């Protein structure tokens, strides 16, 4: 029997936190979006494609994607030292890899598309919120993408599998403790674009967790698509 029988916030085990998504929040950017689940909020800004400097980093065959993730100092209870850290560099890199699996920059040789992700408020699952916001911002920037991408964190708290982990669940230390599995799926082919694991889990349970994540990502995708379509539905009949 698992020690975690009921979730702290009363959600069902497969229920995601309330989502708020909005596109085009920063007028000066080429593309921008905000994605919120519960107490976690991510802002993504896309700039480019533009010429890449320094020149030796340019790829004459296709443009490159450059992601920078950062938590704001006031995003958690203890102040976070601003600037790059081991953790933020890691998340920037895995986000870049996840997004690279869907964007197609072959039309833009020697250029860079910059994605800036900022977390003004964190309650676990910031990297997945960042990926969700970045996918919307990239679409908003008109970057060619084969499909959308949506992400969710599945967790194991003691022996219970749960979807969309919050900070309290992530810090659960009784019994088997807490395992955090952030994952991202592409919208069309349902390929796994990101899969990380922090903790311990059996193979069978991991497979189950991935299936749960896949189902939950449908909810995320729905919110992303709705936000994108809403941002441009005004006034088009007029043009």
């Amino acid at each position, binding site marked *: 029997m698992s020690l975690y029988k009921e979730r702290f916030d009363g959600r069902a085990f497969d229920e995601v936190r309330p989502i708020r998504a909005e596109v085009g929040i920063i007028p000066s950017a080429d593309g921008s979006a905000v994605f919120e689940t519960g107490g976690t909020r991510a802002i993504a800004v896309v700039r480019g494609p533009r010429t890449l400097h320094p020149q030796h980093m340019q790829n004459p065959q296709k443009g490159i994607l450059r992601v920078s993730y950062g938590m704001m100092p006031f995003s958690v209870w203890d102040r976070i030292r601003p600037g790059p850290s081991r953790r933020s560099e890691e998340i920037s890199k895995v986000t870049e890899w996840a997004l690279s699996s869907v964007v197609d920059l072959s039309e833009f040789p020697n*250029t860079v598309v910059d994605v800036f992700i900022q977390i003004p408020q964190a309650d676990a699952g910031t990297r997945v919120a960042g990926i969700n916001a970045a996918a919307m911002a990239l679409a908003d920037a008109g970057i*060619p*993408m084969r499909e*959308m991408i949506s992400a969710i964190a599945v967790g194991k708290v003691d022996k219970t599998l749960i979807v969309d982990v919050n900070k309290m669940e992530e810090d659960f230390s009784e019994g088997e403790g807490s395992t955090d599995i952030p994952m991202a799926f592409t919208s069309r082919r349902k390929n796994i674009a990101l899969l990380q694991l922090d903790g311990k889990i059996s193979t069978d349970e991991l497979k189950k967790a991935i299936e749960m994540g896949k189902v939950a990502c449908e909810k995320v995708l729905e919110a992303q698509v709705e936000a994108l379509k809403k941002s441009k539905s005004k*006034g088009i009949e007029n043009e």
Partner: protein
Amino acid sequence: MSNEERTIVVPGETLVSGNDYLPGDGAYRDGKDVVAQRFGIKNISEKLVRVVPVSGTYRPRKGNTIIGVVVDITFNGWLIDFGGAQNAFLSISEVPRYINKGELRDFLDFGDAVVVKVWDVKSRSVEVSMKMRGFGKLEGGMIIKVNPNKVPRIIGKEGSMVKLLKNSLGCSITVGQNGYVWIYGKSLEDEIKTKKVIEFIVDNATSIGLTEAVEKYIHELGESDFEIIEENTDK
């Protein structure tokens, strides 16, 4: 413009199913389906399926009029930054007068603004020309940057909006499809007024009855003395 209902699509969305259709700009084939590769408006004409972008950076197209700034000079032409992914190339042979090699700076120097026509778009180069009437170096006035996706609203139906601005504000306006707008008037006050009106159009680009709103806004800013200055078409 088709009469078909305009639907907004997101990347990865199936546009149409069936092997008879051809994927065009912003679309690709995945098995039986033609799928959107870009965020935009679905457009099906005959068998060609396309996605027309609604946002993002400016993409040059053949025939576009654009405004840019000279950022580099090579031995046979100028490189022009127009806010796109790469710089445009203006060849020495695409300017209206003969220029000796090595004297390129006398005609166009670094930082000079130009209005040019997109002549050719290849995968890794954009070539522009200023040989036709109405194109050339921009002197005086000011250049403002607006969202390139809002440019059609500044121009209006068959140029009606630009005409309205020119007539009521007395400034000469050149709109580049890349979102750069050149304003040239008798006085700085006139130019600033015109700039405000253009920003008003961009901010309210999605509203219905924009022309009336703009007329009202111009009135609020105060009447100009209705003097139309000569247009800059001598180049």
